[in-house]
């Protein structure tokens, strides 16, 4: 959402078969409308409190000492000089962790503080709390660590057979998918390729920050930017050796997430510092520290062989996927599971043999980022589809349509798609959108932008298309349920007021808006308050996997339905109406009153609520999924979502510079519950996909990050952002609350390969790696 700021300056055309408002009773701002964000105006005015703004009287400032080396043995740590500095309250190292020494989202394999071995550059060694940030900085400088540097293991493929760098081994997960009879079939046409994706960063705007306040009774309150309050709580409690209820976590204003806030960063450190000093402690990472303080997108090397018959029908996909997870497991096991599941793309592929490895190396840890495993394989499978089309001499769009998945088809993990699968509609919308003017526009819009490097004759235009598939929600048997409480009562002015409470992390995506919309639609109440998200209510699951609309949206809807039932029962009891069995239908909540269907009476909500409020809590679970069998087969996913992107790109081959002129997209959204918010997600996701295509990469040299800043890790500006033409494909998904699918991830997945396909079309080059660098185009062009 923060990144959408650049998109806001560009033109967006939206096409949608919107079904209009479905709000009951003419209440404004219900489901299906462009309801305003409750936090929109404060954010624009600079009044919104982000976690970095948190403050407590008498607070200390925490700071982390990090390893400068990607691989080293620690011979000794001397904190005495730091402790003697005036203003330093405490210096903590591994020995000070009272509970579990390690943490992790899926496997607790990451030390709170490294004590004997350092496995990545930036790994925390110690934390200090001091009365001033500058003193905390000096204290960190004063800690003496004696390292014995080791040769870092930085090649993920070599790591498979290398000496383990962690007691849990180097292979975090290996998956083998065998679908159909891959050993027995060969296509009449086979295309082959090896593809690479560089390490992308989520590049959120608000660096990691949090405030921990000890409660004086051994517990702690943590105010934090995160994506999932309850897993933070559980990991902090385990490391602090506290029962979960003594760690209370409240969401603080989040400045973007994109996956980078799923893992623990400073949570354990700041709570530990607060409990040891008995004072509130605040930590805020600098931009540079942020690059070392969160996980990134897995870089990947992918070897592909795609088989087809002469008529273009896909026969088999073979792939070897090597994902570099860096030093610790984070969510690597789930990322590689996704990569394997969607390795063949949104196509009918009867036979597949896919092997995936999530590897441990001394590179920075990698984990969740928007698109989560689908991004990497989409770059590869879409390049393969274009290669196949070229080999067959057919139109790449037709080839895709010919093989497009439909409802009832199976993906390569054997799962039959039971929901909607409008792959064809997505492709047709993207491919059929109006093309931009042939004219290149103003010189500022040429490749090279403000640098004015190109003249008209230096520029060539290319068009490319790509299609993607991804899962919604967590997979492989995980029950990532969500909880919501809805309370209906009379406000101070006597009007009915609803209050909704969840632990769903608002990270900019707009769940706060949606929660209000759902309550308005379900209860016909316009005034809906939001309680702060915290751990005093049950888990909402993570704000990731495009799941909050479905999961927490479903929880809010369920809680509203129960509130309505209680209200009807209350009125029935007062009016002696029998609600047993089919009789339940005789009362309904409409136009602010409980009405009897055939008698001519009604009870206004204000009367029904005058004695007591109604409050209900609801837990929403998705359908049960299964783990994979030994061949990577099983109904592991809840639902699937699809998108297609067509990119029109202007390239200056002589200098290797690129300007993405337009991206048109058709996206499978199920139903747009807030069309404006959906458009925002699509624009922002495309910005991130364009970034990966042409500029965004964490550059590593022997495990060291060379560009940990926004000076050198570049994300798109308004002059890099294309026009966007959006078609929302609205086919309600069975089983989804309101029929809506999550929309956050698909825009990022296939926009990247579409841009690269367009650059290939403009230049004739192979370009098997993203981001595409000027060198890759210009030097190859100069040689040609």
């Amino acid at each position: 959402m923060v990144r959408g700021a650049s998109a806001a300056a560009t033109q967006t055309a939206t096409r949608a078969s919107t079904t209009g408002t479905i709000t009951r009773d003419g209440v404004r701002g219900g489901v299906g409308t462009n309801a305003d964000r409750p936090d929109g105006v404060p954010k624009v005015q600079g009044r919104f409190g982000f976690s970095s703004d948190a403050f407590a009287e008498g607070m200390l400032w925490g700071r982390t000492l990090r390893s400068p080396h990607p691989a080293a043995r620690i011979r000794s740590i001397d904190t005495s000089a730091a402790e003697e500095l005036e203003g330093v309250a405490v210096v903590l190292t591994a020995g000070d962790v009272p509970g579990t020494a390690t943490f992790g989202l899926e496997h607790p394999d990451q030390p709170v503080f490294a004590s004997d071995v350092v496995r990545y550059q930036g790994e925390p060694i110690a934390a200090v709390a001091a009365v001033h940030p500058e003193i905390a900085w000096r204290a960190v400088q004063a800690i003496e660590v004696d390292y014995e540097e080791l040769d870092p293991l930085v090649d993920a493929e070599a790591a498979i057979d290398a000496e383990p760098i962690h007691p849990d081994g180097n292979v975090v997960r290996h998956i083998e998918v065998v679908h159909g009879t891959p050993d027995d079939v060969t296509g009449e046409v086979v295309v082959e390729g090896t593809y690479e994706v560089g390490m992308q960063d989520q590049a959120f705007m608000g660096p990691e920050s949090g405030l921990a306040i000890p409660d004086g009774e051994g517990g702690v309150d943590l105010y934090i930017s995160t994506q999932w309050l309850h897993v933070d709580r559980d990991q902090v409690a385990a490391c602090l050796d506290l029962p979960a209820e003594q760690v209370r976590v409240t969401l603080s204003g989040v400045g973007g997430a994109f996956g980078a806030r799923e893992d623990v960063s400073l949570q354990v450190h700041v709570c530990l510092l607060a409990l040891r000093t008995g004072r509130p402690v605040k930590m805020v990472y600098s931009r540079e520290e942020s690059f070392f303080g969160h996980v990134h997108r897995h870089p990947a090397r992918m070897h592909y062989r795609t088989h087809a018959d002469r008529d273009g029908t896909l026969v088999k996909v073979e792939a070897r996927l090597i994902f570099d997870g860096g030093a610790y497991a984070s969510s690597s096991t789930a990322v590689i599971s996704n990569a394997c599941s969607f390795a063949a793309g949104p196509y009918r592929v009867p036979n597949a043999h896919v092997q995936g490895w999530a590897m441990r190396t001394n590179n920075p840890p990698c984990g969740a980022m928007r698109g989560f495993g689908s991004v990497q394989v989409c770059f590869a499978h879409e390049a393969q589809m274009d290669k196949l089309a070229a080999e067959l001499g057919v139109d790449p769009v037709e080839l895709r349509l010919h093989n497009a998945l439909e409802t009832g088809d199976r993906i390569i993990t054997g799962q039959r798609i039971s929901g909607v699968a409008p792959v064809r509609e997505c492709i047709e919308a993207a491919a059929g959108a109006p093309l931009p003017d042939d004219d290149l526009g103003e010189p500022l819009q040429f490749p090279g932008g403000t640098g004015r490097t190109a003249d008209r004759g230096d520029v060539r235009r290319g068009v490319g298309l790509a299609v993607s598939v991804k899962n919604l929600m967590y997979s492989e048997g995980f029950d990532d349920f969500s909880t919501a409480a809805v309370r209906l009562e009379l406000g101070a002015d006597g009007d009915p007021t609803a209050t909704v409470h969840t632990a769903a992390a608002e990270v900019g995506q707009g769940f706060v808006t949606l929660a209000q919309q759902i309550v308005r639609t379900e209860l016909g109440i316009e005034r809906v308050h939001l309680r702060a998200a915290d751990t005093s209510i049950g888990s909402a699951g993570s704000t990731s996997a495009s799941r909050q609309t479905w999961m927490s949206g479903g929880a809010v809807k369920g809680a509203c339905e129960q509130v309505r039932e209680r209200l009807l029962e209350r009125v029935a009891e007062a009016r002696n109406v029998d609600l047993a069995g089919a009789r339940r239908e005789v009362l309904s909540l409409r136009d602010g009153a409980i009405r009897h269907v055939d008698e001519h009476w009604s009870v206004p909500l204000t009367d029904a609520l005058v004695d007591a409020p109604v409050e209900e809590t609801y837990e929403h679970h998705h359908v049960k999924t299964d783990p994979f069998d030994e061949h990577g087969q099983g109904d592991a996913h809840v639902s699937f979502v699809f998108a297609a992107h067509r990119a029109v790109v202007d390239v200056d081959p002589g200098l290797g510079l690129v300007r993405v002129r337009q991206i048109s997209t058709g996206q499978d959204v199920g139903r747009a519950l807030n069309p404006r918010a959906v458009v925002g997600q699509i624009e922002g996701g495309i910005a991130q996909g364009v970034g990966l295509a042409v500029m965004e990469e964490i550059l590593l040299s022997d495990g060291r990050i060379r560009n940990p800043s926004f000076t050198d890790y570049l994300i798109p500006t308004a002059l890099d952002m294309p026009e966007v033409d959006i078609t929302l494909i609205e086919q309600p998904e069975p089983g989804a609350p309101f029929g809506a699918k999550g929309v956050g991830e698909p825009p990022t997945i296939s926009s990247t390969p579409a841009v690269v396909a367009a650059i290939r079309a403009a230049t004739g080059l192979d370009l098997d790696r993203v981001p595409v660098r000027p060198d890759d185009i210009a030097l190859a062009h100069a040689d040609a």
Partner: protein
Amino acid sequence: MTVVRPRSLSEAIDALSDAPDADLLAGGTDFMVEVNFGHRRPQRIIALRRVEELQGWRRDNGVFDFGALVTYRQIEHELADELPAFAGASRTVGSPQIRNAGTVGGNVGTASPAGDALPLLTALDAQVVCDGVDGRRTLPLLEFITGPKQTARREGELIVRIRFDRCSGPQHFLKIGPRNAMAISTACLALVADTDARRVRVGSGSAGPRPMRPDEAEAFASEAVDWDTGDIASDDLDTFAEMVAGATAPISDHRGTAEYRSYAIGVLARRALRRAVADLAGATS
């Protein structure tokens, strides 16, 4: 940490005589970034923004004379017609906020190989005027800048003015960055077709330890251009591009490889001269 805020040049020089090794702060667009990163821990700062004598630019008797505190924004907006390449270079610097703060004196004083103002100042043989405890002196830019982020500025001295002779004829600035705006240059080049002296003048940036002046390429192009008709043979453009590319000594770093930089400087040189010659043809036709 102490901060002195002089209002006049004499106050600034007094401050320097008290603290000859003090850090000089102008727009702060490099300085403050280094402070924020913890790479620079200043003890004594002389903040120059209020110094009257360092403000503004003027043109007297065919000499452009810039106070060290002239900002990119001023150059971009006030000199778009008279010094289009200087205005164009200024437009490529950071965001509007950065251009409001960053100064030409700071660009020269920082002496980054990627300094966007430096290629044109090189092509125009700019002079750097310093003043200080030991008096005033003037140095050619390429004597003032001695290496990457290294200058001949002495302790107790500050840059007060940047001067160059007005030059008639087309001028162009081209800059490659890793994105289409707000980028540090991977390679950049300024070219002036000096119609009075009938001389092609070139400065390149991010192409060596300091701004590069390809003398032989300049001499070749000055001969190759038909100054009366505004014409040049395509082969001569190629030769010129090769010569300019050959007169670079770039490094490989995270912003680009040496191979790409040299190659790209050649392409920029070819295009810049092509544009300048087209301008000449337009002017004569």
